[in-house]
């Protein structure tokens, strides 16, 4: 067996005759098992298993990677990861569990709105504690709004007082709202100040004032009493020192009160300078 640099002599496949074979490269002849190649140019192998190969350069040795992936694999920084990912949100460094998220700029987390503070604000829940708002917890827009509960304290309240609660007037847990406080037995249900001709200067729960004649007036209430049995207060600033006011007999109904002003010395009707009227009872 021998060669001249471009061919070698070998035995043909059937092992029956010598033949010459073209060669490439230099050095020793390579056999199938255990051979060591030095700087071979493999071309494009049809297949192969690279289990024990090393030194593959990631930037140039791997194809099919998306933009930025090779860069991230070569330099795995948060910025390079963000550049490689196509649908990220937010900026800054990658955060892991138990990490510090730093200065968050998110304005909502699962529908919980957090407005970025101009200077500094704190929402803190201590370890093992719970902050729960099943319905609505609102502190909006007014400086000084606060809910402060001292150590060991609680905030507990019952339902809004109903009209019946107010009229019963015994609950010490229900709280009163402005729209129902007037139902309490001690509350004034209607009042007004009117002039001679019935023009009102100030009033609450009135519908109208009727001038029936000299010293004769009818007060008409907006939300009536539940019956004609309620306590009426009527007084005047009289035109004379002996003027006085009285409720006209039969002049009280659930929604009206008729009153007269008279001069004591003569008993006749007389216009006062002002009428004052108030009523207490059940509505």
């Amino acid at each position, binding site marked *: 067996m021998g060669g001249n640099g471009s061919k070698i002599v070998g035995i043909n496949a059937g092992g029956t005759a010598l033949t010459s074979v073209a060669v490439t490269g230099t050095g020793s002849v390579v056999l199938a098992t255990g051979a060591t190649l030095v700087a071979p140019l493999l071309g494009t192998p049809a297949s192969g298993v690279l289990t024990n190969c090393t030194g593959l350069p990631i930037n140039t040795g791997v194809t099919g990677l998306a933009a930025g992936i090779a860069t991230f694999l070569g330099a795995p920084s948060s910025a390079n990861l963000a550049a490689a990912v196509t649908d990220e949100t937010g900026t800054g460094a990658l955060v892991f569990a138990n990490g510090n998220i730093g200065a968050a700029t998110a304005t909502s987390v699962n529908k919980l709105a957090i407005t970025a503070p101009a200077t500094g604000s704190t929402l803190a829940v201590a370890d093992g504690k719970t902050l729960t708002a099943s319905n609505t917890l609102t502190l909006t827009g007014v400086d000084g709004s606060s809910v402060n509960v001292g150590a060991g304290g609680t905030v507990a309240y019952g339902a809004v007082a109903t009209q019946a609660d107010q009229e019963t007037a015994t609950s010490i847990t229900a709280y009163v709202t402005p729209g129902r406080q007037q139902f309490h037995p001690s509350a004034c249900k209607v009042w007004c100040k*009117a002039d001679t001709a019935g023009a009102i200067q*100030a*009033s*609450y729960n*009135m*519908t*109208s004032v*009727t*001038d*029936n004649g000299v010293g004769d007036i009818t007060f008409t209430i907006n939300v009536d009493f539940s019956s004609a049995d309620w306590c009426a207060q009527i007084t005047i600033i009289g035109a004379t020192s002996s003027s006085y006011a009285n409720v006209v007999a039969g002049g009280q109904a659930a929604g009206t009160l008729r009153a007269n002003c008279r001069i004591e010395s003569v008993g006749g009707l007389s216009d006062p300078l002002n009428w004052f009227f108030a009523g207490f009872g059940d509505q």
Partner: protein
Amino acid sequence: MRKIIYTRPDGGLSVVSPVINTLGEREDFTEAQAEQRAWDALPSDAINPQFVDASAIPADRTFRGAWTHGGDKVAVDMGKAREIQAQRLADTAHADALAAQKQAARDAVDMTAINAAATPQDLIKLSADVVAGATVKTGA
């Protein structure tokens, strides 16, 4: 805001002033709503109720008792006005006469016994005969 006038069954005229309460009223409550509320609360026996301009109500109440329904204004029943004025003059004349009578009676009091009284009890014991200048009785 307009007013409502109507005639009562007794013949008198009532003037209704609708109210927008100064406290406890809804902020958007209007004059029109106040007028309607007053209208709805009129007594069932109101006769010929009608809205009138506030200027249709006389400011002078001298003959308030003679006011009557004048359609879109308040009119004055002159017959009633005359009666009112006649009664007013009679009352004044009666008061003047009563005052003169009282002064005459006061002038007729003989002050001798009154001046002689030394104690409040002495004054109490004096009888009305003193007014006529009769014999003064000083009691027991």
